[in-house]
Every structure is written in structure tokens, then in C-alpha cells.
């Protein structure tokens, strides 16, 4: 397919992955940066076997320079809101970036494990491991009952 078509097609996956990893604000910004990079470096990207994964890494490194000290989500509710019970947002923050990407992309946003593997540039069994460990961490963070008695 033409590169333009590729870029158009990869964008939603890229956005989903970067938002899943870094939240909507940063996810948006670094997606734009990655897309711009992709456009500017299209010759190079066309040579690669996994340009989508490469663009994700571009977004990833851009995100690292954007990241605020308190990370993915605001740690505190706004001053006029009461603190919430530890919910999914803060729980997701306990995951590694890769685990978070897999869990959110696959379970929250319904992308396939293959697509997650492509963005992370790993094989599918690694994705499965990230999913397993990520869900386990969430369960712990959300204090879901895992033992009987």
C-alpha cells in the first residue's frame, strides 16, 4: 500500500497505544509528533519490517520528555472534589508502561494481542505475559479477592 495509506491506517493504532500508555493529553501530543516524524522519514520507514512499532517507539521517547512528575493520571482529585477510592486509574499507574499498554489496548480498547505485539515490537507470547502480569497487578491494586478463606 502507499505510505500515505499506511500512515492513515497506523494512526488510530498509534494513538490508541500512546494514549493507553501515557494518557489522553500526552498520547495526543506524541502521536502527532510520531506522525510528523513518520512523514518526514518515510523513505527510511518504508524499508523497515515494522514501521508501526518504530513509530510507537518514537512516540514513547517523545512522551518521556513530556511526562510530568506525577505521571499518567493526576494523583489527586482537584481540590474541590473529594478523593476517590483507589480506582482503575491509579491502579494502572502501578503497571509498567508495557503492561499498561497491553492491558489497556487489549482489554479496554479491544485491539488484538497481535496489534499490541506489533506496536511493542515483541512477539505475542510476550504480550500474553504482560497481560497476565498486568491484570495480576490490577487485581492486587483493586484488592479483588483472589483467595478463598
Amino acid at each position: 500500500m502507499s505510505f500515505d495509506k499506511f500512515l492513515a491506517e497506523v494512526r488510530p493504532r498509534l494513538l490508541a497505544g500512546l494514549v493507553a500508555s501515557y494518557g489522553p493529553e500526552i498520547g495526543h501530543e506524541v502521536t502527532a509528533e510520531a506522525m510528523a516524524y513518520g512523514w518526514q522519514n518515510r523513505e527510511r520507514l518504508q524499508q523497515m519490517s515494522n514501521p508501526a512499532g518504530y513509530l510507537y517507539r518514537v512516540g514513547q521517547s517523545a512522551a518521556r520528555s513530556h511526562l510530568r512528575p506525577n505521571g499518567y493520571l493526576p494523583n489527586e482529585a482537584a481540590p474541590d472534589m473529594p478523593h476517590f477510592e483507589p480506582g482503575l486509574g491509579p491502579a494502572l499507574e502501578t503497571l509498567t508502561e508495557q503492561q499498561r499498554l497491553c492491558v489497556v489496548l487489549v482489554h479496554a480498547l479491544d485491539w488484538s494481542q497481535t496489534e499490541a505485539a506489533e506496536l511493542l515490537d515483541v512477539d505475542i507470547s510476550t504480550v500474553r505475559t504482560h497481560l497476565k502480569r498486568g491484570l495480576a497487578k490490577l487485581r492486587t491494586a483493586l484488592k479483588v479477592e483472589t483467595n478463598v478463606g
Partner: protein
Amino acid sequence: MLDNERRDNDDHLIAELRSFGRTLEAATDEAIRRPTSPESTAADQPVESLQGRRPAWWLLAAAALLLGAGFSLGVLWPDDSTSIDSVGTQEDDETPSATSTPESDDDQVQGGEESPTELAPEPLPSSIERADGSALILADDLEHQESDSDAQSRAKVAAGAVVDELVRLEVFPGSDRQDVILRLATDGLTIETTLDPAVEAAAINSIAELYPSEFDRADELGIVTIDNRDGSIAAIASSEPTSHVPLLLAREPGSSFKSFVLAALFEEGYSPADTVRADGPCSFPLDDGEYTVGGSFRGRQSIAAVTRSSNNCAFVRLGQIVGLDRVVGMATAQGVTLHDGSDELLSLPLGTAKVTAVDMAGAYAAFANEGLYQQPWLVASVTDRSGEVIYEHQRSETRAMTERTAALVSDVLKGNVERGTGRRAELVGDHAAAGKTGTTNDFVDAWFVGYTDYYTTAVWLGDPVGNTRIRIPGWQSFGGGLPALVWGGYMNELHEDLAPRAFAEIDVGDGKYLQVEGELDFCDQSVDSLPTQTVGTELVDTDADGEADCVRPIPAD
């Protein structure tokens, strides 16, 4: 752990993740769920309805989490162009709420035959409307365009106030703020407010024009406007997008509290022409020491004159003359709650007990309203998804003071705007305006509260978090500075197309000298100012009987 249990737990967790995904998509403002996802249907278009808007990320996330699976998070603050009902769920076959627009009917699957079960009614977002029926968002109808998310977030000031009101009114008994927000997200309510889009727009404009971001807006500027006809709140605005200051934050009003001293005085039969010692510095005995207030020598001055110059020593004396209990009683009758500060202190007339901006606006509206006090109200009605009215505002007014008292206060406060510390608030044309500046010690808070026959507005400037000195430069940190300027610009715009109205004429009569018990009069009563600075007064024993008879000013060295 048994396999089924883990599976159940996982199902629950996955379901929560699914709804989190929807939240994430909503907050991202774009479709990021997989296009062939089983949850995507034609009717399910959260993205388009949120175009250009970005509700609070943390708020949506929290609401979604607490409400579980299959929940499509509605927009709490939809804009004018799309109906909230285009935010659908995957089982979107419920009839839309009463606020749906025609375009949402096209988008949705209609069906009244399948109604939600009693146990689990379909989550349906609520709408908050202004008085004219428009959805509460300040988007395209503003002159000064800022970015969409900024305009969106400014609506939060008013929307947040609506939530506060719903809590205060106990529309949902036992619900706190968080509960109310969740109900708004799911119960398909229609909240009709009293907000007037034209007034709102003028308030936002005046903040944007006169308190631009170049000022490094470390301090917040908050505005509340009341429609004097019925005491309803026509606008709530702030330079801070998510603020609750106008409604909830209690701050020292400074000299803007002096109007209640005036009302108490006139209600007791005193006159604006009555005179009082206006010299400073002044000291008053306390149980443990002395209370000293600064000032300069002014001899005797009328109540009207000391109001124009906001003379602190004079007002401490006036508070003593009329009695602080009467001052508190009057403020209370005008709906003001005194927070966090002793209401018996000598300093009360100087505004050391804290009040909210909405209380101040409501109180001053009683002056405009010939002495009748109406409690400020923001929510006109709440209707549930079936069309049943579950809350309706009941009009009530109480008489806080006589018509004559209100007219006298207006007469004095009018002079304040014409040539007193509130000069910058003067309105163009023949609109009569009355108001009072307020500046607290160390310039921590600055106020201008004033009214015309049509509207009463309170403007507050300060740092809501700390008690630091206002950081904008120079004269602007006085109540007579930026707050008065904003008040004037804003009220001018509001009154552009309104017929000018004057306050009632009132005959003030002659004044008499009011002496504070325990204070002596001047030895020389003809002097009303001195060419030199003074540092206070000293007692003089004119008839050498061992007792002081009068006081004279002590010049500075």
C-alpha cells in the same frame, strides 16, 4: 482460588477495563477503540458528540469506574451543537430525555417499547440548561475566543456551582457532591438553571479583557451576578476555570462589609448627614489590651463622607454607636453567613469575618430591592428522565430593612461610585449605580460589590489557596482598582441596551454629631483637617478639674 472465581473476578475486571476504555476514548476526543470492536454500533458515537470538548479526565474516569460496565459516559456539559443523547450506550433503545434535539433523534435507535428495568435503569447523561434552555457551555457565542477546552472548562465554574447547589438544596437527600455528580452522569435529569447566557458572556468577556493572562493570573478574579427582579443568579464566572470561589469560598470582605453598618444605622433612625469623629489613628480598649486602627486626621465627617473615603476609624466608631449586635443582625437578615471570625470583635465593621461572594451579592441585592431580601438561587427545577419534576424553586422574600433604610443606603453608596473609592466602577450614561469597595489588611482580598436597579454584582480578587498578598501590581490590588474596573466594564456592557433607571430620591435631613461612649469630642470642633500629619489625639483637661474634657490632635514631628 477456584477457576470460576478467578474467571468471575476477571470478568468484572475486564468489564471495568472496558468502561475505562470508553472513558479514555471520550477524554481523547477521538476514536481509539478498535473499529471492529463488538461494542461499536452506529448509535454509539461518543467521539463525535465530544468534538472540541474535553471533560475533566479524572472526573470521567472516576465516574466510569464507579458505575461499572456497559456504561457510556455522557457529557456533563454538552455544547449547543450536539445533543447529549448522541452519546449512547450499546443498548441504546431507550427514548431520549426531554432535552434531546432533532439531530440526536436521527442518530439514535428510537424505541419506547423497551424500557429499562427497575433494577438497572439505563444510564443516561443529564443536561444542565441555562434559563433560555441552551445547554450550559460557553463555546461559540463569546466574543473573545479562547481554545475550545478553555471555554469548555470555564463552564465548569457554573456547572460546579450547580452541583454545589444541588447538594445544598438536598434535592437528593443524603447525597454529597460525588453522589450528585454520579447521578448527573447516569440519571438522565434535566437541570434548569437561572443562568443568563448574555450576562454570562459579558462576565467572561470582562475577565478576559481586563484581567488578561499577561497579568500572570496568580490571583483569582471571581464574579457573581444576581438579577434583582427575582434574586436569581444570572452568572457565575471566574478567571480560574474550575473554581468554586464565587459560591463556596468565604473570604474577608474588608470595607465592603461597611454597608451593613450603614443599614443598621439607618434602620435605627440615624441619617447619612450625621457626623462622627473621623480622625485616625484611633485606639479602643479591649479586655486584654487595645485595638488600634490607622488613619489620618479628618475632624468630624458625615456618615456619607466617611463611606466615600472608607474611613476605618470612623466605621469602628459607628459600629460602637449602633451596636455590633445590630450590625450582625442586619447582615444576617440580608442572608450573610459569617464564617471563621468572631462576630463580636471591634473590627467587624472592617470586614474581618469571612463571607462568600454569593452572600455579598445577595445581600446588596436587598438594597437594590427596596429592603426585600431574596436568597440567591441558581437551580430553577430538576426533572427526572420520565418528565417528573423532582425539585422546583419556591420564591420567597423577607423584609430585611425598611424601604427608607434601603433608599438611604443606596444614596450613600451611589456617592461612592460617583466620587468615592469606587470611582472606577462608574457606569456610562444615566444608569444609577451604587457600590462599595473592600480591601483587606495586607491586600489579601479585594472586592467591589455594587448594584443598579437591574443587577447586583460582587467581584472578588485574591488567592483562594493561600493568604498571600495580591500579586498584581500597584493600584490594581485595591478594591477600588481592578475589582471596581472589572465591575464597571462588565456592568456597562450588561446595561447597554437597558433603559437607565435612577434610585429613589430621598430626603436625608440635617445631621447631628454622634459621639462614641467613652470617647471625647474635639476641643476645637471647627477643624476638619490639618495641614500636617497627626499621630493620634491626646486628652486635654480644659477646666483643670483633673478630668479630661476633650481631645486634640497630636502633630507628627
